[in-house]
């Protein structure tokens, strides 16, 4: 429990990080530093994107698996670290 908190704190303290969301494999947000509506939106949308990305990688090579997903947009970057049961979303504004 404490490790989870510590991890979150470490991520949040990095430069440019705007928000962190942890969600489970069904897209239900467990923990978040953003407001409720944004959290729900991010969790739901990213979950779908994650499923698609993972299935794409697996389709091309069944031995392969998705380890990390970065979505770079004009305003910020959304980084998604997937796991078997959970996934971690971080929204960062790159400094440069």
């Amino acid at each position: 429990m404490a490790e989870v908190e510590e991890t979150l704190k470490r991520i949040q303290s990095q430069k440019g990080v705007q928000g962190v969301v942890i969600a489970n494999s069904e897209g239900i947000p467990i923990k978040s530093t953003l407001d409720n509506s944004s959290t729900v939106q991010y969790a739901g949308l990213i979950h779908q994107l994650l499923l698609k990305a993972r299935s794409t990688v697996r389709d091309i090579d069944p031995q392969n698996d998705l380890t990390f997903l970065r979505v770079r947009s004009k305003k910020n970057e959304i980084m998604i670290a997937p796991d078997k049961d959970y996934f971690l979303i971080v929204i960062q504004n790159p400094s440069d």
Partner: protein
Amino acid sequence: CKSTDTVNSETAVGPGSVQSESSVRRLVRMEIVHVYTRVRSEFGRYCLLSDCGPELTLDLLPDPGLSAQFILRTPRDQATQARCDMSEHQVNTERFETESSGVNHTEGGWPKDVDPNEMEQTIRFRKKVEKDEGFMNSIPQLGNIMVHCIQQNNALDIYQEYCTEEDDGDSAEPPSAKTINVFRDPNEVKRTVTCLSWHPDGGKKLAGAYSSLHFQTSHTSLCQDSYIWDIENPNRPELTLKPVSPLVCIEYNPKDPHTLVGGTYSGQIAYWDTRRGSQPVELSSVEHSHRDPVYKIIWLQSKTGTDAFSASTDGQVLWWDVRKLSEPTERLVLDPGREGNLERALGAICLEYEPTMPTKFMVGTEQGVVLSCNRKAKTPAEKLVCTYEGHHGPVHALHRNPFFPKNFLTAGDWAARIWSEDIRDSAIMWTRYQMSYLTDACWSPVRPSVFFTAKMDGVLDVWDILFKQNDPTLSVKVCDEPLYCLRVQDSGRLVACGSQGGSATLLEFCSGLSTLQKNDKTLLAAMFEREAKREKILESRQREQRMKERSRSEQSDAGRDSSDGLDAYNVQQLMTRAEDDFYSVVEAELRRRDEQPQVTEHIKGLE
């Protein structure tokens, strides 16, 4: 048995070997014949045949001398195609209509026993997950990976673009244009697109005025609507404008993108607000409007943003305040005699107004004259400042160069001309006479040396006078019908042109024609100055010549006083002089011809 070889020819071949060569040659040409001869007395007797071995009858050896007539060719290229026959066929799929609509997302994924609206249940669920072993193990791991990437981002922008300034590559490409969309008149009877106007905010919409400019065509069957199109959707117009009479010109208000003003075929002005629907919000009264179709209307730069002025072939330019369209605020009659006489007025076809010079404006007329006017002059006579003559037909387009406002472009008859404000007698530059009539022209808003012209053969020409002056840089055949109007969007890349068949085509030009190059402005300024100077010199020379002529004729004929008589006398004198010259030349030629045969006879006699 004996056999003799003979050759099937007229001449008898004897046993001698003299003729052997010729016989061999003849053999080559004709059949080889074997003739069997017998003495007459032996006819009818039973033939006794016996075997005899093979006998070489003829042996034609290859003649190496003949190979001199042939050329050996090795290797030989022979193209073959091991492929089945195929044919090309184009198919246009049926149009489908798309519509954008939003989707309502609701929260999902919650397990069956948890109701997402109940706060307690969701909190309980979350707490339960947080206590899970898997959760506590996997999150720190994910966190490590994440931190690594975050720090990576912070250390170096890995997506930074290098060498963004170096993009000279596109100047090497040939200029090109691409058709993006075609907006067709949805009605059965197609009307001409007489005017187009871009939406001032970003140019996502295009307003088109549809009417039929043919004199006295049946207007009852013609649909009177004009449309506003969203450039993404060519299937259906976004908004239909329903005026009382077909619109000939239409213009968006640059200050308020929801309002438009249009001039109708009946001479009235109508004002729309797109938020209020298809009917005009205000309409000017018939008595106080123009008496001919309103060919051009432009919004003015004013504090209230509600002023516009319109021009028509009835010879008047009227100023309006769109809040009160019952009467024009000001009126100007385009009488070149400066008397306000409507009978002698020139019919106006186009207007030019530059917001940076709010008191001046220009009018292009049916008679081929461009009038430059000053709105703030005290008396109506002074309102018409000067005239520019040079076109042989109606001036259909008039546009100031956005970078060099002193120079303006006119299009009419078969050529486009560029003028300098200071030089009244003629244009400083002009294009060659084209094969078909020019109907519209305008400068590019991003490149000072580029302008577009629309022609009656359906071709849109792009001219870049810094690149080539004799011919257009790019000619695009837009459609088979005549093009009537042309409008460039503010970005300089998109051009909309309207045709007689009611279709407005949207073209996109390559970046070479729509990005400002480094030296454009300075080079063009130098070019304009050079041409203007040339014209000025020519003008002054002509003036000098005229003065000399006048003084010469004054000296030779002191009796004539009145200037009218002098001019007429000059004309008469010129004519008689021309006649005399002509006859003398003809006589000289005839004399020469008569003398020549005498000369030749003389020469012949000498021989």
